[in-house]
């Protein structure tokens, strides 16, 4: 790579190359592109990123992205109140919404249990989920968590926490090609697997 002669350009390239999937070569290309744009256009670009970062927060209820206290999905009165779909992250909410096949509530855990990576149950929004189930009169929980070793442990742990309740637990259908993470599944398959969800049996080897 060419040596960069300006300190300002160099700083910009360093900052851009910290973005996921951006190497130094791409970072330089982006920086030079921005340099060639009108000043107000770059200002607008800057602003929209800052606005996103400062004004978006976690929904108080489901931990999805929210502009206010609650996210738009929680505020939507037309959505079914008695079902929660439990997911690992915000991208899973987006993927499931894309399918248009689900019209209930969500709960974002913030990951799966993995003590090796310092993620115990207390680091996830599991207690909040249990509380919601009691306070909102939830009847069904759909576990849309990737069927990895740690994902399965997380599902099991949550089901243990709810053993004394009479909530209906289901898991999105497996065997439907879903290569580990929900966001990589195509819409049709994911939509179908939510409709064809299967009851979760705590001691079952289903």
């Amino acid at each position, binding site marked *: 790579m060419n040596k960069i002669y300006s300190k300002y350009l160099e700083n910009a390239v360093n900052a851009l190359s910290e973005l996921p999937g951006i190497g130094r070569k791409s970072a330089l290309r982006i920086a030079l592109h921005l340099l060639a744009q009108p000043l107000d256009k770059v200002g607008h670009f800057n602003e929209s990123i800052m606005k996103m970062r400062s004004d978006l927060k976690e929904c108080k209820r489901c931990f999805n992205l929210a502009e206010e206290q609650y996210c738009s999905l929680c505020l939507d009165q037309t959505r079914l109140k008695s079902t929660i779909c439990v997911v690992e992250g915000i991208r899973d909410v987006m993927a499931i919404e894309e399918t248009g096949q689900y019209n209930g509530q969500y709960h974002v855990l913030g990951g799966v*249990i993995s003590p*090796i990576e310092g993620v*115990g*149950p207390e680091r996830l929004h599991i207690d909040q989920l249990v509380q919601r189930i009691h306070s909102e009169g939830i009847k069904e929980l759909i576990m849309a968590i990737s069927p990895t*070793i*740690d994902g*399965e*442990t997380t599902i099991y*742990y949550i089901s243990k926490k709810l053993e004394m309740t009479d909530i209906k637990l289901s898991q999105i259908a497996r065997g439907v090609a879903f290569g580990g993470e929900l966001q990589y599944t195509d819409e049709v398959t994911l939509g179908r697997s939510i409709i064809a969800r299967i009851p979760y049996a705590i*001691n079952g080897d289903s």
Partner: protein
Amino acid sequence: MHLSELYLTNFKSHQSASFRFTPQINVIHGLNGTGKTNVLDAIYCLATAKSYFGVPDLKLITHGSNFYRIEGRLNRDSQEVRLVNKYERGKKKLVEKNGKAYDRLSDHIGTMPVVMITPDDLILVNGLSQDRRRFVDQALAQTDHTYLNHLVDYKRLLKQRNVVLKTSVNPDHMLLDSYDARMAPSALYITSKRKAFIDNFRPQLEVFYHWIAQVDEQIDVKYLPSLDGKDYIEASQESRKRDIFLKRTETGPHKDKIEFYLGPRAFRMFGSQGQKKNLVLAMKLAQHHVLSTQLHLPPLILLDDLFDRLDHQRVKRLIDLILKSNFGQILITDTRLSRIENILGSQPINAIELTKSKSNEEE
């Protein structure tokens, strides 16, 4: 089944090397430091996706390079299979069959079954139970994908469970229960398959031991499972207090013991050096026999530094045994070709000489 061609790029001391093998006896000879053992380890890597000696992937790369590649042509069931194992620094290791990468490495294991015999193997007798469990696991993994998957799952869950025990004074019992529930089916499967393996292996071990030792010593192998017929969940509940006190998981197949006996006494303690060498060789041949029977084809035998570990008489007996029965393809390394030629007599062999120029200086 036999490996007909092997191409190495930046694998340990071999920057660029190619080999052709015949379906029966192949002898790789050359001075020390020419990388003979590395050729066998490359073949082992191609078969199992791991170095036999436990060398991490990064260390398999030739010094100063950033990737390695192993390619082999395998003739199996009268078809040619092209296998590639490649690893680049910072990327995921890939194993390909006929140009297509496997999704899971476990799907590959068993495509090209191997049995490796090296001077280091004395650890199987002298070492800890974990070395002997590894021996059994290596054999089972090559015949049973379900076993390998259970083993991988069990190890991951065990590691997680141990971190919970290690990092919290007052561990979350519900979390420990969750790990137990998830580990239970794997623990059960692993235990029952290990038991079945030892039961198949025991009579073969006796036969081969007597053949090599040529004396009527009574030998035995015992599998002492940690669960010992108990239900995993129950056993784990029983040892929960102890686990918390010791901050590690004390029950389960990772605590299984495998012991060899010479008469009534532990081989490890009372066997002589010569008896131990016989035992290790018998173990490997018995493993080969069990794999052959289950897979309906003989695994490749990789014999490293044969004369280093066995005297002339034993080598002769071993070669006789191999020639008499259908042992399939064999690759032998030795410093001097003449020693093996003497024993083999008129038997045709494919001799491959390694010189310093064919490989690179470092070993």
